[in-house]
Structure formats: structure tokens, C-alpha cells
């Protein structure tokens, strides 16, 4: 039984990172109606900024973390200006924006790889150990590593804040209006361009936070860590329901739980078969995902 709860803790903390990452996907998708496939690269830049700030500039974690989030947010905004806006202006179809985001992702990874080569003489580096106390908390028969609790709290906290921003603030209202219909929103006097920039910034900051947490748990950072979560994040938002904030987090935790328990029971080889098998079955029964709503009431 202890083993079960221990595995549950493993799954929840991994799921929190997946969920946080998937939030950014979900946010951009619900406001723009476009998948930003460079989001995994933004995730990676978050971890990379955090690493450089802590390891090279010797900043304390408490300062480096928000800075890394802001950095990743700005990278995400740059994506909007470089990969999305010019295409949207020319009325390019959404599929072109998707492809251009893949290109942007490759570009970001390559730039970071170059920076890694120069800063670390290789393609991976490690966060210094002991940034977060790693003495496990003993709870009954359970051993809980503090960082795993921290990421769970951080992810849930950010989810609640995001939910509040979207539903209670003016910018949230604008985002929902733009998501509902860009043209109508523009006619109502909403600065659509600014809403897009804000959306990309928030999505990027969340992705960056996920990347930073990922780095803190596993210590290792490389330009390629984005690919670890890219597919998982997509699965999470489809599973949870495209465009749903709670759905993204739920989806992330579900994917992590499926991965963890299938690894624990059957070995890692069957992990993705289980995850994608369940995704497939769910989509047959409920195409809009677990918490998804019909298109007209998105966000």
C-alpha cells in the first residue's frame, strides 16, 4: 500500500509539471485557435535562463525563478511577433502558423545549443545541487522529496491565479472576448494585438516556470528537454479538453499517472502504449476531451 501512495506522489508531482506546461498550450489555443508548437522550446528556455541565472550569475533561486519566467514570457512574445503575427496579417491559414511555430521551435533549440556550447562546452549542464532542501520528509512509510511538494503547490497555485485572471480581470475578459470572436472583439474596441501579446506572455511564463521546475527536480538541463514534454503536453490538452484550463492540468496529471503506474507495473516499454491507447479510446467516446466544451463556449 505504501508503494501505491509513493507512486501516487511520484505521479502527482510529474503531472503538475506536465499540467503547468500544458496550460500554455491551452491558453494560446483557446485565444488564437492555433497550436503553438514552439511552446516546448519556450519550456526549455525557461530552464536554460534559470540555469544561467543561478549557475553563472549566482542569483538566489527566489530571484532567478521569476526572472526565468519573465525571460521565457518574452521569448514567447517574440514568437508572436516573428512566427505568428506576420502570417496572421497576411491572412495565412492556421496550418501555416502551426508550421511556422515548428520552425521557430527548431530555431530556438539551435540557438540555445550554440549558447550551451559556449557556456558549458557541451550540450548539457546541471543545476547545482541543494538549491531546494533534498532531505526527504518522512510521513508514515512514505518518503517525500520537498521539491516534489513544491512543484505541486506551485503548479496548482499558478492554475488558480490564471483561472482568476481569466475570469475576474479586465484583461481576462478581453481574452475571452477575443477567443469568442476576434472581429467582434475588435469592433467592441478591444486592442486584439495587445491581447495576443499578453496571452503569449502568460503562456510563455507558465511554460518557463514548468521548465524551471523540471530543471530543479531532475537537475539536468539540455537544449533538448522540450522534446520530453512536447508530445505529453499535447496529449494532456487533448485528454483534458482543448482550450480548457482545468482540463489541461487534469490531463497533465492523468498522463503522468498513466505513465507512472504503467511503468511501475509493466515496465517502461508499455508506458506510451497505455497513454496513447487510453487517449484513443477516450476520443472515440468523448471527442471534446474530459472537460472540453463545444466550440462556441470555449474559454
Amino acid at each position, binding site marked *: 500500500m505504501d508503494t501505491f501512495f509513493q507512486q501516487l506522489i511520484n505521479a502527482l508531482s510529474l503531472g503538475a509539471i506536465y499540467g503547468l506546461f500544458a496550460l500554455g498550450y491551452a491558453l494560446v489555443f483557446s485565444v488564437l485557435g492555433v497550436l503553438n508548437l514552439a511552446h516546448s522550446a519556450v519550456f526549455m528556455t525557461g530552464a536554460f535562463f534559470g540555469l544561467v541565472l543561478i549557475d553563472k550569475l549566482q542569483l538566489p533561486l527566489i530571484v532567478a525563478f521569476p526572472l526565468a519566467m519573465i525571460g521565457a514570457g518574452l521569448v514567447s512574445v517574440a514568437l508572436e511577433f516573428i512566427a505568428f503575427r506576420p502570417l496572421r496579417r497576411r491572412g495565412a491559414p492556421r496550418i501555416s502558423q502551426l508550421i511556422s511555430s515548428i520552425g521557430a521551435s527548431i530555431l530556438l533549440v539551435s540557438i540555445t*545549443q550554440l549558447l550551451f556550447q559556449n557556456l558549458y562546452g557541451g550540450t548539457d549542464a546541471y543545476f547545482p545541487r541543494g538549491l531546494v532542501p533534498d532531505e526527504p520528509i518522512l510521513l508514515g512509510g512514505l*518518503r517525500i522529496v520537498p521539491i516534489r511538494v513544491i512543484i505541486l503547490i506551485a503548479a496548482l497555485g499558478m492554475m488558480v491565479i490564471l483561472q482568476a485572471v481569466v475570469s475576474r480581470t479586465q484583461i481576462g475578459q478581453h481574452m475571452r472576448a477575443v477567443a469568442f470572436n476576434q472581429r467582434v472583439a475588435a469592433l467592441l474596441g478591444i486592442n486584439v494585438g495587445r491581447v495576443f501579446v499578453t496571452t503569449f506572455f502568460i503562456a510563455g511564463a507558465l511554460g518557463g516556470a514548468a521548465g524551471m521546475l523540471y530543471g530543479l527536480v*531532475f537537475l539536468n538541463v539540455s537544449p533538448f528537454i522540450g522534446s520530453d514534454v512536447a508530445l505529453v503536453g499535447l496529449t494532456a490538452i487533448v485528454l483534458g479538453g482543448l482550450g480548457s484550463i482545468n482540463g489541461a492540468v487534469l490531463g497533465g496529471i492523468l498522463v503522468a499517472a498513466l505513465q507512472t503506474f504503467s511503468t*511501475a507495473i509493466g*515496465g*517502461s516499454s508499455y508506458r506510451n502504449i497505455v497513454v496513447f491507447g487510453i487517449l484513443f479510446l477516450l476520443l472515440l467516446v468523448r471527442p471534446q476531451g474530459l472537460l472540453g466544451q463545444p466550440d462556441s463556449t470555449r474559454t
Partner: protein
Amino acid sequence: MVRRVFALILVLALLAPAVMAQDEEVLQMGFWEECEDPAGLPETVTIGAIFAQSGAASVYGISQSQAVDLAVAEINELAYLGEGVTLEVIYADSAGDKEQAIAAMTKLVEEDGVVAVLGPTLSSEAFSADPIAQENGVPVMGVSNTAAGITDMGDFVFRDSLPESAVIPGTIAQATEALSLTQVAVLYGNDDDFTISGYDVFVEALEANYVEILAEATFAKGDVDFSAQLTTLLGTNPEALVISALAAEATQIIVQARQAGYTGPIIGGNGLNSPAVLTNSGEASEGVIVGAAWNIASPEALSTAFIEAYSAAYEDAKPDQFAAQAYTGAWLMATAIRCGDSAESLAIRDSLAEIVDFPSPLGMFSFDEDRNPVHTPVVQIATGGAFAVLGAEMTEE
């Protein structure tokens, strides 16, 4: 490039006194007496080297290329291939990827026309790329391939890296005796030739030593979260954790096993045998036991000389086993060229196959009839962030 040039200058600066010191009968690498100075070589002899210089396996690939640079600088400086003959290396990055290793081998052999190839870094890359060298009749020498069956690919395929099948049985036998093991748990990567063949040999060796395997779990290359597997394995209360993994995954496994409250010994294959694994896993590495072809604490005179030269060339960096094997590999290749007095691929192959009792940092080195290396391995234990020789520690007690 700038770094390479800088390194080269450092090497040359260091070698100047070394060459002068030859008069004092300092043991010098190479068959200087055994083979006459070659006379029939062209001005430039070009060999290729395929190492994983990017990606997860770059932990190995970068130290390998640095070691080869060092060896080649020495070989040219000492005119090992005769006056006026330069050994040149063309590097290609395999990135830990089979497809890229194939592309690299094709380019080196068919476009650049190299006479011999060192590498590739991973066994999985070797299985994909070496057949191209074999078909083209170009000798290829793995300097870090330890999976079973590498040299079965053909008579042009060599390696100077002891296979897991030669290192692991000794590791398990010594560890079982030193720690009185009876029950262990095993964790291994099941999508990589190297980690699978390591696992097979571990299981065989454990059985031979009457050690029971309580539980087994697997992971895939690129995994970072091992908490699920470790929770399952450690739930069976093993006396030791046996892992067959590459460095990147091994580091995570060691750290996460300690976080999960495991304090016992962790016995690993060749992938764990890198100072980078110890540095990156910090205190968690205490008690990691690894068999190896080479240890930095080796008493061999040539080994000490190699460590000094490497540290001088690379800003005080300490070489690992991969560097020692790559360095030896480059010298072996040059020796084959020297002794065969030919830059033809076939002649190099034949002359390579005849190398016996070559003094090297790895000890007295020979190729057996299957082109596999023969030399004595060491079993090491991590203490205070460095590898000590397990046997040595036991005699001290």
C-alpha cells in the same frame, strides 16, 4: 577551433621537454624498437573519427575527441610515422543517433576517403555504421563499444574497449565477495544495445555467484524520471541495486535512488564509469561500484604520463576511461600504420590484427583472434567523489 589550436600549442609546449627527456629512458608510448621507421608513407595520412559530440552521449564523445587530438599531436610531434609524415583526423558527429552515425561513416569512407576510422561512440551506432566500413574494406576501431557481438560484424571491425562480458563478471564476483550479497534488484535500459547486453551479462554473472534477483525494471533512453521504477524495486528491500545504464540516465538513477531513501551499494556497468557521473550526482554517488577497463588511480607509468599530458592540454581536466581508450586507440591505429609501413586500408587492418603486448595507459594491450582487446580490468568504488580501486581499498583495511 580556437580551443583545438590552443590545446595543440599546449601539447607541443609540454612535449618539448618530454622529447628531450627520452634520453633518460623514460617509457615512451609506441613500438619504436619493435617496428622500423616507415619509409613508404605519403605526406598526409588521413583517418576518420566518429564521436557523439552533441546529444546525451556527448559526455563521452567530447573527451574522446580531445584524447584523440592529444594522441595525434604527440604522434606528429614525435614523427612516429616518419619524418615529414602527418597524421590527420577528420571528425564527424554521430550525436548518439544511429542514422547520423551511418551518414557520418558514409561521408568519411566514401567522400573523404579516409584509410581507417575510430569510433563511433555508442555500440548502437557501431552496429548501424560499421557494416559500411566493412563493405568498403576500411578498418574501423571502436574505442568505447562494449556490447557483445561488435567484432562479429566483420574482419575489418576492431575495438580496444573491453566488452561488458569481460568486465562485469569480475565486478560482480568481487562485489559479491566484498559485500556478501545474496539478493539484489536490477534496473536497465531495454532500448539500447549497450544497456541490454550489459543486463544480460549482469544476470549471468549474478547467477554464477548465486545472487538472487528480487525484482527487475526497465527504462528507455532519454527518460529522466525513474521514481516509479525505483519505488517498485526498492520496495523489495534489495541488498544492492544493479543498473545497466548510460551516463545521463545513470546520474538520475543514482540521485533519485538516494532521494528515495536507498543507502546501499549501486553496482553499474561501463556507462557509470565517468567522473562526470560522480560530479553530477554528488554525494549520492558514494558507494557506486563499477568495473572498468581503466582507472585514473592506475599505477601504470604510461597511464600517469597520459593523465599529465591530458590535464596540461585541457585546462586541468581529468581524463576518464573513454579518453584513455580513445587515446590508446589513436596510438594503436598509428602503430598499425607504422608497422605495416603502408597507408592502405587492407595493410592497416592486417597490421592492426597483429598487435600484441603493446604498452599503453590501459596496461599491456593485445588484440585476440576476434579483434577484441585483451588486458586486465579493474573494479572501482566511488568514495568522496572519486573512484578508488576496490581491491586496493580492501587491502588497506
